[in-house]
């Protein structure tokens, strides 16, 4: 029982190795079998340890925990693990009918699952570094999996940028080790109490945060995300946008917990970074016409909203809002990406303006897509509404912050009103391939969205240990707010976005070069140094 975390890491890794060694079509079932074993183990582990997470510490080799590697779990990593296993189920089911090259693909996919589960559980900074490196390489390979020119460039771009970020992470680990003599996160956290915020501690914080900002695609270091998620296969895009990007946010939570006693006043700074990310993401999304690019830029903006919540680590309500939004975003963004994948493969184009009549051609997929859209725009009775409301309640008194969230909501509404044009129009003849498993994956995700939107009180109490009773869905004010946002969004779309004026076109064609991205990387280090070291 005690070693279940280790099995959770190695069951998918071993499955991946077996799939690679025995290159047979039947080995695809092994992935599902491993997934089933994983689910059972996770449920067992949850039943055994929920509520008493102080017993979950494992130190490998039985060594002193100052020098050994340890794994530890808490509510946050536990709920992330459930989300991971659920997301992998969906993607595995969705990509199950993929064909001959599937075993190669499954090798990388299953290995990624093991690595991601390990990243969630580790209690050691260098161990964390190793897992993030593995994650970057695996994600780069999965982005470039189609082997087209674009995919290859995007994969390499991501790999190089995240390597630069990870070098900063490594440097920071060296600083931490030299300051505290250990890289065990819990012990470092305790040791921080007596340091009285020295420059070296602040510098290490800055370097960690730069790495996190690249990994979770905050403005201005987001440039890899739209490329990567735009060109990858839809199943992979769903996984990357839904879950793997959240790895960066998870690091943000973990590292800020570690620096809890270091007297660093980060909340406001990261709040504004989050707000900026949300606004910039929406702005770019509005200008795009490629369906997957729209969704990718919305990932950036939703990460901004999550960040607005997470930045208040010491204000429980805001934090819960951000944390729940990670889960809700994972569900509806996976749903939208997978649905978009089905539509794109049927219509053979990614352009929103060229696809017509999806409602008549693919009624099931359309219904699921509409559920995803309602969730992401924050309609009452869907899951996006819950977390957005919690964040809204936290900032409702502070003028400008509230209005920024409102503007982002209007932007999201506008952009999905634009996307919803694909549903209208006459039935079109498309390549009809019956794919029941894809529909099943979409249906499960849509179901999860609706469930979390309506039964949020028992779910959030059981899984995350939060009480969110104060959210009331059925009030008229909520509906009024939502329809106000929709109306403004429609007007905005009709008269500003649809005519495609020059500024919109300019934003659409703006692509950040690699040089600019690196320049901004250095600028961001200096900005963070100014905020956290000199102030």
């Amino acid at each position, binding site marked *: 029982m005690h*070693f279940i975390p*280790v099995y959770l890491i190695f069951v998918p890794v071993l499955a991946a190795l077996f799939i690679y060694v025995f290159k047979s079509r039947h080995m695809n079932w092994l992935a599902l079998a491993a997934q089933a074993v994983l689910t059972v183990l996770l449920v067992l582990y949850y039943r055994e340890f929920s509520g008493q997470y102080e017993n979950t510490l494992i130190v490998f080799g039985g060594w*002193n925990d100052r020098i050994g590697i340890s794994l530890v779990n808490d509510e946050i990593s536990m709920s992330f693990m459930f989300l991971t296993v659920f997301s992998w189920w969906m993607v595995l089911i969705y990509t199950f009918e993929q064909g001959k090259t599937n075993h190669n693909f499954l090798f*990388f996919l299953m290995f990624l699952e093991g690595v991601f589960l390990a990243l969630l559980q580790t209690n050691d900074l260098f161990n964390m570094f190793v897992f993030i490196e593995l994650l970057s390489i695996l994600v780069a390979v999965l982005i470039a999996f189609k082997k087209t020119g674009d995919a290859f460039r995007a994969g390499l771009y991501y790999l190089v940028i995240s390597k630069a970020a990870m070098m900063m992470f490594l440097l920071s680990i060296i600083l931490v080790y030299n300051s*505290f003599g250990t890289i065990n996160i819990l012990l470092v956290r305790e040791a921080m109490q007596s340091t009285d915020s020295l420059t070296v501690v602040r510098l290490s914080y800055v370097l960690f945060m730069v790495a996190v900002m690249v990994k979770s695609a905050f403005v201005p270091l987001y440039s890899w995300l739209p490329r990567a998620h735009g060109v990858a296969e839809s199943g992979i895009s769903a996984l990357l946008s839904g879950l793997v990007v959240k790895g960066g946010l998870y690091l943000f939570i973990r590292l800020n917990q570690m620096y809890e006693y270091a007297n660093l006043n980060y909340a406001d700074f990261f709040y504004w970074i989050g707000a900026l990310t949300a606004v910039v993401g929406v702005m770019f999304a509005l200008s795009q016409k490629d369906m997957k690019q729209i969704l990718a830029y919305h990932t950036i903006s939703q990460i901004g909203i999550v960040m607005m919540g997470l930045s208040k680590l010491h204000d429980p309500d805001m934090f819960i809002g951000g944390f729940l939004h990670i889960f809700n975003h994972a569900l509806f963004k996976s749903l939208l990406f997978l649905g978009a994948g089905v539509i794109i493969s049927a219509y053979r184009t990614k352009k929103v303006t060229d696809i017509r009549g999806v409602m008549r051609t693919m009624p099931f997929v359309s219904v699921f897509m509409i559920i995803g859209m309602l969730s992401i725009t924050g309609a009452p009775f869907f899951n996006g509404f819950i977390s957005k409301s919690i964040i809204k309640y936290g900032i409702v008194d502070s003028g400008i912050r509230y209005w920024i969230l409102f503007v982002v909501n209007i932007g999201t509404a506008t952009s999905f009103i634009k996307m919803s044009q694909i549903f209208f129009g006459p039935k079109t003849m498309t390549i009809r391939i019956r794919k029941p498993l894809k529909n099943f994956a979409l249906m499960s995700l849509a179901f999860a969205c609706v469930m979390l939107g309506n039964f949020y009180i028992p779910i959030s109490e059981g899984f995350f240990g939060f009480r969110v009773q104060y959210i009331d869905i059925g009030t008229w004010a909520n509906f009024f707010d939502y329809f106000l946002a929709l109306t403004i969004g429609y007007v905005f779309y009709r008269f500003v976005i649809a005519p495609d004026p020059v500024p919109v076109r300019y934003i659409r064609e703006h692509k950040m070069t690699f040089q600019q991205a690196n320049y901004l990387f250095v600028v961001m280090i200096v900005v963070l140094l100014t905020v956290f070291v000199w102030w």
Partner: protein
Amino acid sequence: MIKHVILIAMLLAIYAVFTVSLQDLEQIYQTSADYFREFGVDQTGSNNLVTAILLDYRLFDSLFEAGILLIAVSGIIWISKHDIEEKNARFMLDKFKTPDLFVTFSRLVYPLMLAFGFYIIINGHVSPGGGFQGGAIVATAILILYYIDADKETNIGMIVTVEKFLYLTILIIASLSIFTRGTFFTNVFPYETSSTSTQVIYLVTLNILIGFKVALGLWAIFTAFLKEGR
């Protein structure tokens, strides 16, 4: 131009913060080195403390460091694989372009390098070295083989499969300690009861396996690159 000046100014500022912050280390510098010096040899049986950390105290990290190479190899193979028939592909290393002197010396050096690589692998627990370093040296020796025989054919698929099996074996051997000590990823032979020479068996086995795995992985990588640059 102005952009470059600003960039240099920013880098200098970062450097300045670094130098300032390193002075703080005089106040709070701490390290675990004393622990390793005091207990390292007794607890792990390795005179080389780097190997002690790599193969015992932090074996879990090393497994996934080997995993990074594994994934990098499979990723490169997958990405560089072309659909055209390449059974009779000739490598870019043309016999006529390689100087004779170089080929002759390569023949002379090849066995020495191979022996040196194996020496580094096997003595990883005594002197500086170990599986990762020795494996890289062995791989370099194999690379020289391509200069000696430019027409050499290599079956990458085979290499990669063997590499995966070796990785599986490493994982299994690393976790054997669950049966003897009740915990994962440490020496199979408990240090309380067994002598240093018994513990060494485990270290040498792991070093050899890691060495072969690394050598095979690097071999696969440069074979893929040679085919690519053809």
